[in-house]
């Protein structure tokens, strides 16, 4: 196990190098002169020169890359062209906002996905199973930015309820924008988590169906174990193994999806930062943020692989 962890960590090194090269070259792959683009088309020559100097664009590429990595390792991702502040500072609190959003959404998705998947599998081909799976299919076919807008309309702007409904007049329960209070968190989390919940539900269902047919489930029943315990203890524990991988992948997907969700709900996280910076041609911030998200993603995948290996004791090492 320990060996596996070490090997797996070593394996990520080339990936890290590759990612850093890609992110670094973003600025240089843009057609035209990056300094000119950042300064604006009509900017005076000195200003362009100034930017070029500041970003070290006059050095040979390998030197630039080396410096970029050296600084990045020390937590220096350059300065924003817009605000002049450290990219690291710009990311700062936004990192936690996006992480929070992704984690809450994952928790919601796992919770809902597992319950739905287990119910569907145990009541296979029933009305409940069919309906849940149709809902799940819709869930993963919806663009999350659209779902977000609809949720805003239904639950933030709200729909007036007919007068015979007691106590409540409309459904404007949540806030359409921002991040922090419960009323602000709910809609973005639901928006971002829905597709993952659907995917996890489908995965859990098929994995449970596989497991329920296994001989060891019959063994448990032959031992006199209660059906509920058979499902939740004996079957689910095995069925979860492939689900873990999906959850890991989903988490990465959520980091990406956060870009859209944050934009819909004006959540001030890394996703919105990327979009705002792309619009403002603020390359250092774009690069820095993408790098941070990629690193986070790599880290999560590493953790998932290790967990998977730990859970799935049946896989022999290589």
């Amino acid at each position, binding site marked *: 196990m320990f060996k596996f962890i070490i090997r797996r960590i070593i394996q990520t090194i080339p990936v890290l190098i590759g990612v850093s090269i890609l992110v670094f070259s973003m600025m240089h792959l843009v057609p035209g002169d990056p300094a000119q683009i950042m300064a604006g088309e009509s900017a005076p020559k000195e200003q362009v020169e100034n930017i070029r100097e500041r970003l070290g664009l006059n050095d040979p590429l390998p030197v630039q890359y080396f410096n970029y990595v050296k600084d990045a390792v020390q937590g220096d991702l350059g300065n924003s062209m817009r605000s002049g502040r450290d990219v690291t500072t710009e990311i700062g609190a936004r990192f936690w906002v996006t992480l929070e959003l992704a984690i809450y959404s994952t928790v919601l998705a796992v919770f809902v996905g597992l319950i739905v998947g287990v119910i569907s599998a145990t009541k296979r081909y029933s009305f409940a199973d069919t309906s849940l799976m149709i809902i799940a299919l819709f869930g993963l076919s919806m663009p999350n930015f659209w779902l977000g807008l609809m949720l805003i309309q239904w639950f933030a702007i709200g729909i007036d309820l007919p007068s015979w409904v007691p106590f409540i007049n409309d459904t404007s329960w949540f806030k359409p924008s921002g991040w922090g209070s419960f009323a602000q968190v709910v809609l973005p989390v639901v928006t971002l988590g829905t597709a993952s919940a659907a995917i996890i539900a489908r995965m859990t269902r098929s994995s449970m169906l596989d497991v329920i047919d296994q001989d060891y489930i019959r063994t448990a029943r*032959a031992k006199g174990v209660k059906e509920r315990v058979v499902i939740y203890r004996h079957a689910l524990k095995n069925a979860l193994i492939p689900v873990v991988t999906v959850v890991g992948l989903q988490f990465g997907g959520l980091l990406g999806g956060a870009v859209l969700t944050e934009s819909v709900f004006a959540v001030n996280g890394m996703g919105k930062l990327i979009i705002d910076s792309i619009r403002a041609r603020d390359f250092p911030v774009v690069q820095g943020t993408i790098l941070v998200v990629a690193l986070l993603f790599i880290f999560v995948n590493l953790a998932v692989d290790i967990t998977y290996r730990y859970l799935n004791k049946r896989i022999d090492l290589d």
Partner: protein
Amino acid sequence: MTSAPNSYENILELNDLQTSFFTKDLEVKAVDGVSFAIPKGKILGVVGESGSGKSITSLSILRLLKEPGKIVGGEIKFKGENLLDKSEANMRKIRGNEISMIFQEPMTSLNPTFTVGQQISEAYKIHQGLNKKQAKQRSVDMLKLVGIPSPEKRVNQYPHELSGGMRQRVMIAMALACNPELLIADEPTTALDVTIQAQILDLIKDLQERLGMGVLLITHDLGVVAETCDYVAVMYCGKVVEYTDTKTLFKDAKHPYTVGLMKSIPQHDQDIEGDLAVIRGSVPSPAEMPKGCRFAPRCPFATELCREKLPDLVTDEEGNQIRCWIYSDEWDGDPEVNVHAETERTTESY
């Protein structure tokens, strides 16, 4: 179970058990009126070709059939009480406690995500209300009983860390944990290699004698029957065709199918499955089940009567049972027929 035990001689008695699978367009009668009895503390062997309904019979006893399988008729009397009348909750109290089962595939019958100890302990926790520590101690004892070396270490291991033979020992330990009165072993050694097979069978027989339980031993292997069982039921196409004590069977098998099986016991203790060339033809599919004797199409002695009418399972003076027209008054073939001599002929067709 609180009531005074009824008097019963047989730990288990099946009367006309019928189990069917309901597929879209037909009912597959996997078990079609099976009757046999296991006297207290005895071993009954059930033999028959693949697909004859042995496993389905044993799963029916514990009522562990999966959809679309269903018990459609008959009686399963365990200690004099019909298991088919019991509630699911009462069945659970019996499973793993009074009746246990060992399955054919030791590699897949243990849960890969629990330790051996956890899996054995579970039976103690459910049926005897032991706490974790006690249950684990008893699990270690059980592992010792079934001959697993260094049980204190093994108890914390996962199934994948054990060999096939070891796993089957664990299965046995798990099955015997609560001192069941009946053990059902469905081909417990088929998946194991030959030397281990003998060890496991010896173990089962040894424990059976020590604990005095009844055993239903399903097997392909008549050699195993000869060494292990007190009684034998021969099954063919969901029906019992012959039921006797082992000695009689090997001295004087009556049913042509049984005789065929005996003739096909290979030299090297292999399964009969691959070597059934002695009995020509193959098991009929559920869709084209003969309307007379199920074995008639393959039987060298079959007559018009055999093909037209299904014989009953008849009990003779000594209590042996046979389902064959040859031994009835209605027999319309050669009255001097000798099932033992004649079967040799069947090899011609091969």
